[in-house]
């Protein structure tokens, strides 16, 4: 008995030690003195009494407490700890205070017996079995919390249903508690056997600190501007283009993607919609580690490397960028190393992509039949390209060489393409230096088939490498040096047109005019070259043979950007507390060049065909075209083709003086001054001297902030910026903003337990935009005069022997032109509910003044040879954006988080210089930016009588079956004055997204839906017109050869024809040439651009701890993901996100499998 008593004492002592040594500060409540008297109460009710008397709460599981025991306590002015000691020890109950919670747990036998004061501990770190309970700040027990030993990720466990854990550790180990939705906490064991922990709920670690302009980190609660931060994890989609992940994921960003063309598939995105209608870009400023880079650079960023991703939306957030911030700023920082053991992270993915919607193309026979119909219906005497007998023989399946039907797609393309991506990063470091080194390697194999007869591989192979190294060095305690090196390198080897060009060409090639290539006939047995098919009109008008273009040669291109950045940060607390200086110097070099070689294909067609013997001979079509520079010239040897090159270099320097200090515990004062200077030099496209001059801008900006007691926040920002683009009077501008915030939930009067956070904030200010006008109009204050314009000269003399070039003016000088000014106000509310649900809602209004626009009031009788521009436009935009998220843990194995975002942005014309229209509907004022004007397409004309009786349409020839427009102004003819605003703008006004992630044990699943609405698009009546010789003016690839646009199945099925005079058919009367009357913008081809799609789905499996332990790795996850899996839309012909041209390179659906692991 005595022995037991002694033991008990020891246990009591050790238990006391736990209490006092462990977290003494936190346990202050145990030092509270109480007086109370309890007699023969049941254990449970006794606890209740103590709880109410002492103002504490007990947390325990039922099995700990001896329910039936009755106890008595008599304490007067005793410390709570002493009361507990005497109360609990006899029942082997350990106790620990966390806040006002007292957590009770059972002492284990080791607890009881290992207590012989520290004998073993003196010799070596002792192994202990630590137990404990994890609760949250409301006292609720937390199951499923991960508990690991720091530095030994193979040692760990999770809490059980009762929130308890048991773990064997060394006595000096540090336990790391973590769980989704809670802040990670580290607790040193310090020899204790019981470690009870309370986890603080936190939506996200990222959100506590917000990265704002110039990379300044601000506490979230102190931010008064509008900044959306995005978790880089949310941007991880199986795509090598980061921008395609934006839509619906970032509140305040309107984003959409028009093409899936590799390399050109950047999404178009606008922060808070389109807020200007100037000729320049409304694109946001993109800064990666403070350096201004292009959308493409942003697109290539690896989500794995992103430390923070912030969207600066309102004036207060962007003011520091002064004249460049009006369109919003995207600010990204990359990861840096952290002190600790080296961490190695690997992610490998293999994805397969295919069009989201496969275009339905009519078969070759239908093509020929309808081509003939198109010819005859417009000109009964037309020379038929596909003779009736040819069509009949093709239908009969006669000699397929003589009567070819070609499926160019099947011939040239695989159904799908695969990409491989690998990302590796390594981070770690010691006290003096930390490193983060990342590399990635993407490989795109292309979708082309390879013809074995060619002696070079004609498929695409695009290798893309990235290397990033961020090194932080701390030479002294107050100095930090950051060295960032970054390089991205693309090497392409493949057909000259690339996959995309060939794709487009295949859609412009006749399926029946000729075979892709012919087997040698008797005359060509000895011929070495491939006998490509073609068809000739005139002496040098050939059709497109994409197969020949694919095989005729190959191209190599090399693209690289290299960036070196040096940052020196000095803490100047020695001078005055809270002062620091940061400097940055960065340079990057970009280069692109390509080289191609090709032979000149030899084109053949059937010369003679003897039906009886089924023997044909070939005739050589381009025999006369011997000019190697002619696209149809033939030559057997490879010859070089001159390529393009593009080089640029830029320099950037930045200095920041930062002051931040807390006075008297509640006055937080901060001030920042930033000076920047930037220069870019590039190879001009032509030898225009103005384009060759360096591009420069510079500025000083500053921020002063003050907050009181974490309740009231105030901020003043300014930017004082210069731009090279304006006349000296306008070079510099001052852009001030103010902002304020009020954290209501930090007020004393705030008692709501359910609403744990409520904050209001607002800002108002002015920012500018100097990216106005087109690139060639760089210096508006200078006229642009060509003193040697060959096109404007003249020649005289008997043989025109004396000629001189002329003089032309392409811009008149206007020294008054300056930046656009945007007056922006923003109001936001942040709400947190039960620590589970968060909502940020913002409304904004901005008025963009001084928008550069073409003077519409200048009649042509002025004789100006160039448009005149002035800052006369004005636009207004408003909208709101919303983010919400919700996280719930149901058990240790099951958690779910849901989030959504919604962005509504509408820009309107306020002032627009336009003629004084008699009809209000022609005026832009009050209409949305990107609103389209068009004619009301009523129906198709019925017959010639109908044609005569209807108002005359002034767009060229039209016949029955062509579109009839409504005469809006009733003047008896259809002219441009009959156009009315039709549909929604072409930029969506609403983008939204929502999704959930959930986890069950080792499985996780996330689904994200994205949609947009209030957008109209027009099926392009030229680009999609069947049969016509179409070439995209922005991306010409035909090179003078005749294309024949593919016939969409939908058009084949529904068009006006003389036999089927459907006046509401999808497509008007067929034609083999563009019919200008039908090509007018009208409601006939207008479609609703709204859609909702399953943007991404991901299923992942993380290996269990047991296996990880065996493999000695920290983490291993395998996942399957997909993007653009399914789309809901009223429009069925092609992916509605592509807009008007369904024959363009389609948006891709990607299915992906990946693994990532770290150790």
């Amino acid at each position: 008995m005595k022995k037991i008593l002694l033991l008990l004492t020891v246990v009591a002592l050790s238990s006391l030690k736990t209490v006092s040594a462990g977290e003494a500060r936190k346990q202050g409540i145990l030092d509270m003195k109480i007086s109370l008297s309890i007699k023969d109460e049941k254990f449970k009710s006794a606890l209740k009494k103590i709880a109410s008397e002492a103002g504490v709460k007990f947390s325990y599981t039922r099995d700990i407490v001896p329910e039936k025991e009755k106890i008595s306590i008599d304490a007067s002015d005793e410390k709570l700890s002493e009361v507990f000691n005497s109360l609990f020890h006899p029942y082997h109950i350990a106790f620990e205070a966390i806040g006002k919670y007292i957590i009770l747990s059972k002492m284990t036998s080791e607890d009881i017996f290992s207590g012989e004061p520290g004998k073993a501990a003196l010799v070596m770190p002792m192994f202990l079995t630590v137990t404990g309970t994890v609760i949250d700040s409301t006292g609720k027990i937390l199951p499923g919390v991960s508990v690991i030993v720091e530095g030994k990720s193979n040692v760990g466990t999770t809490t059980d249903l009762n929130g308890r854990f048991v773990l064997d550790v060394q006595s000096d180990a540090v336990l790391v508690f973590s769980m989704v939705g809670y802040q990670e906490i580290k607790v040193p064991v310090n020899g204790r056997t019981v470690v009870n922990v309370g986890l603080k709920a936190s939506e996200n670690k990222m959100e506590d600190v917000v990265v704002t302009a110039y990379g300044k980190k601000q506490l979230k609660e102190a931010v008064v501007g509008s900044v959306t931060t995005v978790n880089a994890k949310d941007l991880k989609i199986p795509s090598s283009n980061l921008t395609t992940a934006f839509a619906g994921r970032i509140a305040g960003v309107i984003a959409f993607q028009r093409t899936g063309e590799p390399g050109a598939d950047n999404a178009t995105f606008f922060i808070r919609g389109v807020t200007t209608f100037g000729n320049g870009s409304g694109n946001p400023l993109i800064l990666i580690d403070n350096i201004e880079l292009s959308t493409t650079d942003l697109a290539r960023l690896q989500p794995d490397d992103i430390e923070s991703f912030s969207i600066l939306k309102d004036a207060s957030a962007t003011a520091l960028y002064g004249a460049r911030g009006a369109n919003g700023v995207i600010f990204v920082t990359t990861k840096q190393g952290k002190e600790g053991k080296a961490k190695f992270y690997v992610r490998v993915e293999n994805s397969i992509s295919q069009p989201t919607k496969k275009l339905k193309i009519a078969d070759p026979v239908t093509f020929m039949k309808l081509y003939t119909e198109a010819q005859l219906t417009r000109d009964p005497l037309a020379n038929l390209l596909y003779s009736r007998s040819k069509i009949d023989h093709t239908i009969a399946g006669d000699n397929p060489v003589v009567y070819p039907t070609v499926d160019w797609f099947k011939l040239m393309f695989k159904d799908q393409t695969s990409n491989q991506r690998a990302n590796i990063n390594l981070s770690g470091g010691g006290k003096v230096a930390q490193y983060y080194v990342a590399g990635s390697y993407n490989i795109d194999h292309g979708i082309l088939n390879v013809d074995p007869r060619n002696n070079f591989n004609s498929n695409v192979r695009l290798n893309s490498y990235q290397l990033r190294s961020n090194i932080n060095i701390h030479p002294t305690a107050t100095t930090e040096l950051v060295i960032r090196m970054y390089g991205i390198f693309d090497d392409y080897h493949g057909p000259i047109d690339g996959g995309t060009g060939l794709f487009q060409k295949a859609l412009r090639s006749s399926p029946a005019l000729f075979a892709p290539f012919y087997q040698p006939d008797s005359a060509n047995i000895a011929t070495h070259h491939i006998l490509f098919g073609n068809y000739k009109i005139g002496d040098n008008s050939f059709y497109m043979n994409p197969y020949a273009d694919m095989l005729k040669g190959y191209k190599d291109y090399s693209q690289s950007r290299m960036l070196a950045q040096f940052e020196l940060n000095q803490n100047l607390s020695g001078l005055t507390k809270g002062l620091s200086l940061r400097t940055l110097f960065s340079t990057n070099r970009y280069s692109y060049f390509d080289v191609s070689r090709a032979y000149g294909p030899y084109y053949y067609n059937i010369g003679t065909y003897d039906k009886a013997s089924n023997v044909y001979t070939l005739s050589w079509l381009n025999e006369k075209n011997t000019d190697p520079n002619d696209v149809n010239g033939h030559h057997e040897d490879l010859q070089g083709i001159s390529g393009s090159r593009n080089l640029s270099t830029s320099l950037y320097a930045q200095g920041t003086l930062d002051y931040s200090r807390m006075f008297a515990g509640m006055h937080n004062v901060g001030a920042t001054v930033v000076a920047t200077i930037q220069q870019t030099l590039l190879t001009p496209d032509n030898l225009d001297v103005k384009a060759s001059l360096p591009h420069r801008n510079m500025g000083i900006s500053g921020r002063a902030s003050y907050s009181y007691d974490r309740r009231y926040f105030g901020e003043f920002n300014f930017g004082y910026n210069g731009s090279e683009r304006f006349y000296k009077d306008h070079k510099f501008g001052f852009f001030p903003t103010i902002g304020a915030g009020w954290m209501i939930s930090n007020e004393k009067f705030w008692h709501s337990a359910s609403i744990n956070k409520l904050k209001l904030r607002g800002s108002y200010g002015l920012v500018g935009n100097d990216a106005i006008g087109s690139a060639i109009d760089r210096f508006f204050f200078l006229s642009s005069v060509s003193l040697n314009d060959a096109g404007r000269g003249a020649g005289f003399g008997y043989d025109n022997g004396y000629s001189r070039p002329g003089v032309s003016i392409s811009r008149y000088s206007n020294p008054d032109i300056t930046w656009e000014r945007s007056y922006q106000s923003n109001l936001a509310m942040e709400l947190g509910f039960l620590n589970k649900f968060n909502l940020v809602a913002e409304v904004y209004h901005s008025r963009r003044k001084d928008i550069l626009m073409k003077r519409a009031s200048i009649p042509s009788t002025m004789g100006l040879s160039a448009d005149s521009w002035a800052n006369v436009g004005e636009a207004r935009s408003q909208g709101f954006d919303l983010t919400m998220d919700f996280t719930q843990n149901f058990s240790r194995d099951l958690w779910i988080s849901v989030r959504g975002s919604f962005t509504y942005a509408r820009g309107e014309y306020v002032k627009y210089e336009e003629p004084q229209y008699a009809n209000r509907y022609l005026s832009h004022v009050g209409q949305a930016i990107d609103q389209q004007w068009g004619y009301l397409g009523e129906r198709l004309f019925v017959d010639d009588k109908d044609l005569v009786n209807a108002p005359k349409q002034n767009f060229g020839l039209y016949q029955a079956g062509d579109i009839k427009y409504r005469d809006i102004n009733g003047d008896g003819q259809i002219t441009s004055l009959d156009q009315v605003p039709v549909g929604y703008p072409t930029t969506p006004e609403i983008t939204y997204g929502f999704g959930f992630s959930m986890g069950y044990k080792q499985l996780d699943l996330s689904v994200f839906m994205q949609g947009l609405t209030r957008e109209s698009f027009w099926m392009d009546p030229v680009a999609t017109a069947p049969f016509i010789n179409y070439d995209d003016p922005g991306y010409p690839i035909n090179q003078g050869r005749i294309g024949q646009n593919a016939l969409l199945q939908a058009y084949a099925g529904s068009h006006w024809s003389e036999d089927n005079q459907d006046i509401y058919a999808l497509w008007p009367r067929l034609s083999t040439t563009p019919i200008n009357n039908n090509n007018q913008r009208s409601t006939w081809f207008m479609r609703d651009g709204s859609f909702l799609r399953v943007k991404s789905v991901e299923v992942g499996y993380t290996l269990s701890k047991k296996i990880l332990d065996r493999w000695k790795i920290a983490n291993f996850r395998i996942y399957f993901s997909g993007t653009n899996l399914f789309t809901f839309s009223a429009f069925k012909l092609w992916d509605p996100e592509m807009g008007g041209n369904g024959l363009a390179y389609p948006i891709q659906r990607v299915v992906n499998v990946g693994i990532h692991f770290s150790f």
Partner: protein
Amino acid sequence: MCIGVSVLLAGCKKYLDVTPDDIGTIDYAFRMRSEAEKYLFTCYNNLPGSGQVWGDPGFITGDEFATIYPQGNYFDPGLYRIARGEQTVVSPLANFWDGGNGGKGYYQALRECNIFLDNVGNVPDLTSMEKKRWIAEVKFLKAYYHYFLLRMYGPIPIIRKNLPVSASIDEVRVTREPVDTVVNYISSLIDEALPDLPVQIFNESSELGRVTRPIAMAVKAQLLVMAASPLFNGNPDYANFKDHNGVVLFSASYSADKWKKAGDACKTAIDAARAAGAKLYYYQPASGESMTDSTKVTMSIRGAVTDKWNPEVIWGASNAMAGYDVQSLSQARVTSGDPSTVPTPPSTNESIRSMLAPPIHIAEMFYSSHGVPIEEDKTYDYAGRFTNLRTATDDYRFYILNGYQTIQLNFDREPRYYADLGFDGGIWYGEGLYDDTRTWHVEAKHGQFGAQLGAGLYSVTGYWPKKLVSYKNDFGSNSSGYNVRAYPWPMIRLSELYLLYAESLNEVGGPSPDVYFWIDSVRTRAGLQGVVQSWADFSSSPAKPSTKEGLREIIQREQMIEKVFEGKRVWDLLRWKKADTWLNMPIRGWDLEQPDAPSYYRVKQIYTPVFTPKNYLWPLSENAIVVNPKLVQNPGW
């Protein structure tokens, strides 16, 4: 601190000042003679692309040519769409007001002329002689561009001086000025220019094509004749055509004095031109060229247009050379008929576009061999012109292939018919064969040499404007090319002035020996008898030349024939107010699909153009009216 900041800012300003001082401005164009010369040439650059399908609003917009429509593979029919009735106010074709759709922006041209006139005084190294000449040239060009606009649009705003770029909206909203004001302005501007213009070009190898005094005088004559013509002179149709302020834009009363002035201007111009060496063109065979008189006559007619810088051409457009484009479009695919001795270009020679096709009524327009209209010629088988198939005899051998069967319409016509037109069975002299006993000829029926090639290389009527083809062209040694001798497009020929003078004289005083003299001068070169005698001998209305109205008709017909295919007919028909007669005629051709003569020579209608009164003046673009509400649209548009 303040000092530091201000120093920094000063440095900043400098840093941002990236533009060097020597960025070119318009002043650079007048820093020295050689630069100013470029600006002078820029003013010339605005001259119209005469004789070009896609640049000359008088060339293919009327009824002289039909072609493949709506679209051929070889040229965008462009302004031909006007002939097909596709002119619109939304996007006018041949828009010389705003520039675009084949039209040059002539207000830009005028601004450039004014810039030159404002600045040429600053050029330090320009002699005063040369300066005067340049100023005179640009003044003429300024007058010409106004004239060009007047001819198309009627009343126009006059650009006397340039408005500054920063002019207020009220200032830039100019109004259309009455026709008479515009005419007087142009005429006085030409008068200003005349004294300083050279009488003729002496530095022929470097200056031919530059404006001379005869050119300016001839343009003034054209201008005043036009102003005196029915469209502009007291046209009742436009009596109510006023602008928004009530200003009457067309004088409502006829003024005979305008014809007097026009006649005087014609006479002055003729005298000046002849003094400078101009004369009607007569062909001189080269040594070794074997030729009869018949051929010589046709060659004189062809050469007046196509012989480079010949003395009849008062104004040759050195910047609108009739080169491969128009000549290959006009060239028929001819054959020698004897490939064994004369290597014939293959019928598949696609270098020969062969696409400009004069319609049948243009063929009918030519006189009979007696120099009177075929419908008036008592001896001509007018009724059988489309039905009577005849086989050419040896008498016709210089016009029609001996033994070839063709239609009556092609028989017994004046030399200009055979000089200007190519047709099935017609002889085609020159182009490598310089002996009129051994020439090319046309075989145009289906399956024959000159028939349709490919999808679009053919004449849709069966006629070709041989007049526009230089006889010095050839088909190259490989027989598949087409090598062209370019000639400066004849903007004004002396014969035109003769006929304009005759027209003016007749309007002023009616028939007179003087009138007959000028018109007969032209007829003589065309191998015809004088008007009085021809009508007296062969016409069913022999007294026609003796009345003012009859003679007017004869002079107009003479002009239509003499100037055919030169891009002038449209303007003449408009100013005579005869366009609604001629330009509503169905466009017809032969039945090209047929291989034999009886079937081939069936008249097929190609289309019927529609000319309505509004077409007498060209439309201003809707946008021009919207932007400047002070402008009024032309009637009917």
